[in-house]
């Protein structure tokens, strides 16, 4: 739970110094943070266990999963669901509710639909990131931190106002790993704000596409990884 509070404090400290960042005020960035952090912590709750894969690979525990007549990925994610991570999701949820109350949102049926779509897609996107990273572990093993750059770096990126990014960052965290679609872009659409110049305001509606794209990456990565795997030896 403290993790979430400290992450929120990091954002808040910046706004202690300035009123507006990347065209967003604190209550508006709170909406970005709430959406992204809630989705991330729920994905972490269910799929975060993929992080343990390098340990299973090294000590051969993964071979046991192969003996059972169930899909490998399903066994991996269900081998440990740590409910203590729920407390962390509470921080994101609180931030989101506070942001929805504090911001002046012109509620309509479309807005509710967008909010639900954003939450479901954001969750799916982060879950896909964990699976993508898991697939890459079959090749990296010791180099597990390489994928952390994008999974946890992605979480960090997702809670930022993406309008401050330069083009290379947009390429990596805007589209390839569609982090901007988990918080920033849906928040802009909900608030009825225009993006930074070249971004149309309706882009937030494309969050499900982003989730589908991430899962394409994830399943490809997982497939390559599993094909590459030749057993733990011994």
């Amino acid at each position: 739970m403290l993790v979430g509070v400290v992450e929120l404090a990091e954002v808040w400290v910046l706004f202690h110094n300035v009123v507006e960042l990347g065209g967003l005020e604190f209550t508006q960035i709170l909406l970005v943070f709430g959406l992204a952090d809630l989705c991330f912590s729920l994905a972490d709750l269910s799929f975060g266990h993929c992080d343990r894969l390098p340990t299973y690979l090294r000590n051969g525990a993964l071979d046991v999963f192969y003996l059972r007549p169930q899909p490998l990925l399903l066994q991996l994610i269900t081998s440990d669901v740590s409910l203590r991570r729920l407390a962390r999701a509470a921080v994101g949820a609180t931030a989101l509710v506070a942001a929805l109350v504090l911001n002046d949102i012109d509620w309509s049926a479309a807005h509710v639909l967008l909010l639900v779509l954003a939450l479901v897609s954001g969750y799916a996107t982060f879950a896909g990131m964990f699976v993508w990273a898991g697939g890459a572990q079959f090749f990296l093993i010791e180099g597990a931190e390489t994928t952390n750059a994008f999974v946890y770096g992605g979480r960090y990126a997702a809670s930022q106002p993406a309008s401050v990014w330069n083009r290379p960052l947009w390429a990596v965290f805007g589209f390839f790993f569609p982090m901007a679609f988990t918080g920033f872009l849906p928040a802009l659409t909900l608030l009825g704000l225009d993006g930074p110049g070249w971004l149309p305001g309706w882009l937030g509606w494309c969050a499900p596409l982003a989730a589908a794209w991430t899962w394409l990456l994830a399943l490809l990565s997982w497939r390559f990884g599993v094909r590459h795997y030749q057993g733990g030896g011994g």
Partner: protein
Amino acid sequence: MRATVRVYWRLLVAGFRRQSAYLLAAFGGLVANTTFGLLKVAILFATVEAAGGELQGYDVALMSTYIWVSQGLLGSVNLHGGTEIAERIKTGDVAVDFLRPLDVQAASVVTEVGRSLFSLIPRGIPSVLIGALVVGMAAPASPLAYPLGALSVLLGITLSAATVYLLVAAPGFWLVETRGLQVLYMVVSGFLAGLFVPVWLFPGWLQTVAEATPFPAMLMYPVDILSGRADVTAALALLAGQAAWLAGVLLLGQALTRAGRRRLEVQGG
């Protein structure tokens, strides 16, 4: 006396050499450092610009130095709370360590420092170089900043190892399972050390809270000296602060080790 120094020197070298075996891991760390560094550049540069180009003495160039030096130190300054001795205390292997003619605390800290010093080569220096080449950064006004900064980095690394020993490992004599402490350390230390936002941008009360802990002395102080944000006089004061924290943390750690030794229970048979 000379023999004692030689033994700990050997432990330092052993830690250094052991870390050199994990090159792929170090590369992964560098990728992570650089990615986070670029994200920090985006958000912190935007903050400085939104404040009118200057914020608490930080302009864009100085902010860049802060970002890349702190990212570079991340592989060496222990802000994750993990340490080998914690596992040895949990399993009871530490009983063997107590039989050796070595101080358990000193041996642990020295080995961890050796590993951290190696990490400067594949993670620390490349992070700073990437930052300097890709983003550009400010250089300190006085060349004295480099030797003072090097000393400060060494003190910061040692202080982090000693603090992890004190706050995460040593309580294991009583608690056995210290994973909770490790996570708590990881969450609090990074924030208060100024890893994501410089401590000097905190609101006043939070700065006071941070300065009441050893965390800024691990990361913020070395970065201030190396970036030239602190001039030579200020740098000397920061170094004195680091030394004082280190002495205090080492003394407390020693006291806990002696008390814990009497309390130690080796699990299992």
